[in-house]
C-alpha cells in the first residue's frame, strides 16, 4: 500500500490528539493502540472504551424487493421488523463466505447492512449483481458515515446519558436518529463480547460524538482503544475476523458458525452448497487452542496432534484476561475433544497446548 492510497477516517485528528499509535490497516491509517493493548482490553472488560471503526462500510437497500433481496443474499433469517438486526453470513454459490455482516431492517422496504471495511467494494458489487431484475436501489454509503464503537459493562450508563432511548435497544437492534442534526444510527452491537453500542453518524458528527464520549465517559473509566485490543477482545470472545478466519473458500459450518445458516427460511445463495458440505461431514473445523506453557502464538503457527501437523492458526494472540496464548485454526480432523493435548510451533519450537472451547472468555451479552 503506497502512501498515496492510504485513507484516513473523520477521526484521524482526534486519534492523533488522543495519542494513537497509527498504523496502516488494510489501507486505512488507524490507531493500533493508545495507552497500551492490555490496559485498553481491561478497560473494555471492566469499565468501557471507545474505538474508531469508521473504516467499516454501510450499504442501504431500498425498494419494494428490499426484504426479498436481503433474504436472498444472507444465510441468516433477516426479519422485516423495523429496528431488528442480526449477525449474518453472505454466501457465494459454493457456500463460502463473501463476507460476515450485520443487516438491519429500518422499515419493510428499507434495509441497512454494515459490512467489513476491506470487503465493502466486493460486497457492493456482489449485491448489485445479485439484485439484477429486482425492484430496489443499493447505495454504498460508507463515505457518508463515520462509526464509533462504545463497549464495556459501563457503556449503557453513558448511552443513557447521551441518547436515553438507546438503552432500550435489545442486542442487535438499531434506532435511526438525528446525531448533531444529521442522519445517524445507534445499534446495540459490538465486536468485543461486552455490552455497548455502535454509533454511525456523519463525519462531522462523528468527531463531536468522539469528544463527548471521551469527556462524559471519563467518570466511568472510559479510554480510547485501538485495533490491538479490538483484536484481542474479539478473539477471546470467539468472533470471526473476515479474511483471517473465514473467506470465500471456508463455509459457516467449518467456521463452527453453523447456527447462522437458517435453511428453513427459504432459498438463499449458497444454501445448497453449504448444506451439502454439512451433510457430507466437514473435513476441517475452526478450533480453539490455548497454550499450557509460556509463549505467544501467532497466525500461521502450525498445530500438531501426536506429532502430525493438523492445521495452522488463523488468529492467535496473548489473552490479557486469561494470561496465556490463545488461537483458532482449522483442524483436520474436525472433531478434537476439549482438553486434548496438542503442540503449537512457535519460532521453530513446539509448545504444549490444549484444545480449548470457543469463546475463550465467557461473555455476558
Amino acid at each position, binding site marked *: 500500500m503506497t502512501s498515496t492510497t492510504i485513507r484516513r477516517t473523520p477521526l484521524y485528528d482526534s486519534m492523533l490528539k488522543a495519542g494513537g499509535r497509527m498504523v496502516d490497516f488494510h489501507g486505512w491509517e488507524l490507531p493500533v493502540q493508545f495507552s*497500551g493493548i492490555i490496559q485498553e482490553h481491561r478497560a473494555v472488560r471492566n469499565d468501557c472504551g471507545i474505538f474508531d471503526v469508521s473504516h467499516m462500510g454501510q450499504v442501504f437497500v431500498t425498494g419494494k424487493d428490499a426484504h426479498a433481496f436481503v433474504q436472498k443474499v444472507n444465510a441468516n433469517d433477516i426479519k422485516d421488523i423495523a429496528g431488528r438486526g442480526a449477525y449474518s453470513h453472505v454466501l457465494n454459490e459454493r457456500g463460502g463466505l463473501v463476507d460476515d455482516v450485520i443487516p438491519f431492517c429500518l422499515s419493510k422496504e428499507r434495509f441497512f447492512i454494515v459490512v467489513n471495511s476491506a470487503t465493502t467494494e466486493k460486497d457492493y458489487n456482489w449485491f448489485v449483481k445479485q439484485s439484477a431484475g429486482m425492484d430496489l436501489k443499493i447505495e454504498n454509503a460508507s463515505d457518508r458515515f463515520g462509526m464509533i464503537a462504545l463497549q464495556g459493562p459501563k457503556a449503557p450508563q453513558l448511552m443513557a446519558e447521551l441518547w436515553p432511548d438507546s438503552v432500550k435497544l435489545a442486542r442487535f437492534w438499531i434506532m435511526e436518529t438525528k446525531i448533531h442534526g444529521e442522519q445517524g444510527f445507534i445499534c446495540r452491537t459490538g465486536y468485543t463480547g461486552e455490552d455497548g453500542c455502535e454509533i454511525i453518524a456523519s463525519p462531522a458528527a462523528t468527531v463531536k460524538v468522539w469528544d463527548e464520549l471521551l469527556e462524559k465517559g471519563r467518570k466511568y473509566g472510559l479510554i480510547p482503544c485501538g485495533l490491538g485490543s479490538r483484536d484481542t477482545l474479539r478473539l477471546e470472545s470467539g468472533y470471526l475476523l473476515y479474511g483471517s478466519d473465514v473467506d470465500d473458500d471456508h463455509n459457516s459450518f467449518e467456521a463452527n458458525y453453523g447456527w447462522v445458516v437458517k435453511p428453513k427460511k427459504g432459498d438463499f445463495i449458497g444454501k445448497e452448497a453449504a448444506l451439502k458440505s454439512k451433510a457430507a461431514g466437514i473435513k476441517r473445523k475452526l478450533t480453539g487452542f490455548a497454550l499450557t506453557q509460556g509463549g505467544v502464538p501467532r497466525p500461521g503457527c502450525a498445530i500438531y496432534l501426536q506429532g502430525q501437523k493438523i492445521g495452522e492458526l488463523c488468529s492467535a494472540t496473548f489473552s490479557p484476561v486469561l494470561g496465556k496464548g490463545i488461537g483458532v485454526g482449522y483442524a483436520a480432523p474436525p472433531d478434537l475433544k476439549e482438553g486434548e493435548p496438542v503442540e503449537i510451533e512457535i*519460532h521453530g519450537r513446539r509448545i504444549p497446548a490444549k484444545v480449548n472451547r470457543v469463546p475463550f472468555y465467557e461473555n455476558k451479552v
Partner: protein
Amino acid sequence: MYKPENCKYTKTHEWAFAEGGVAVAGITDFAQHEISDIVFVELPKIGAKTEQNKRCAVIESVKAASDFNAPVSGEVAAANDALAANPALANQSPHGDGWFCKIKMSNPGELDNLMDYAAYQEFIKQPAQH
C-alpha cells in the same frame, strides 16, 4: 539499577553494563516503549554462546515478536528468572529488575563497537532509525 549513563548501546536498542569481564544486558526504555506490553520473554540458557548483534532472546508483546540481540559476544552466565516469571518487568524497569541476562565477555574490546549514552540519545532522536 544499571544507570543508563553508564551503559553502552546497540543500534537495535539493547544496553550493556560491563563490569569485571561480565556484561549485564537488557532493553532500553525507548525499546520497551516501542514494543509496549511485554507478555513473554524467551531467555537464553546458561552456558549458551552469544555473538554480538545476533539474536539471543525473544521478546513477545501482545501484538508482535521482537528479537533481543546480544550486545556482546561471550557465554551466558545468568538469565533473569524474575523477568521470565514476570515479563512486564522489562516495561516497568528496563534498566533495573527487567534486565535480561549476564554475558561473560569473550572479547571485551567489542564494547567499543557500541554507542555511549550521549550517542544513543542522539540516535533515537533520528526518526529514520526507528
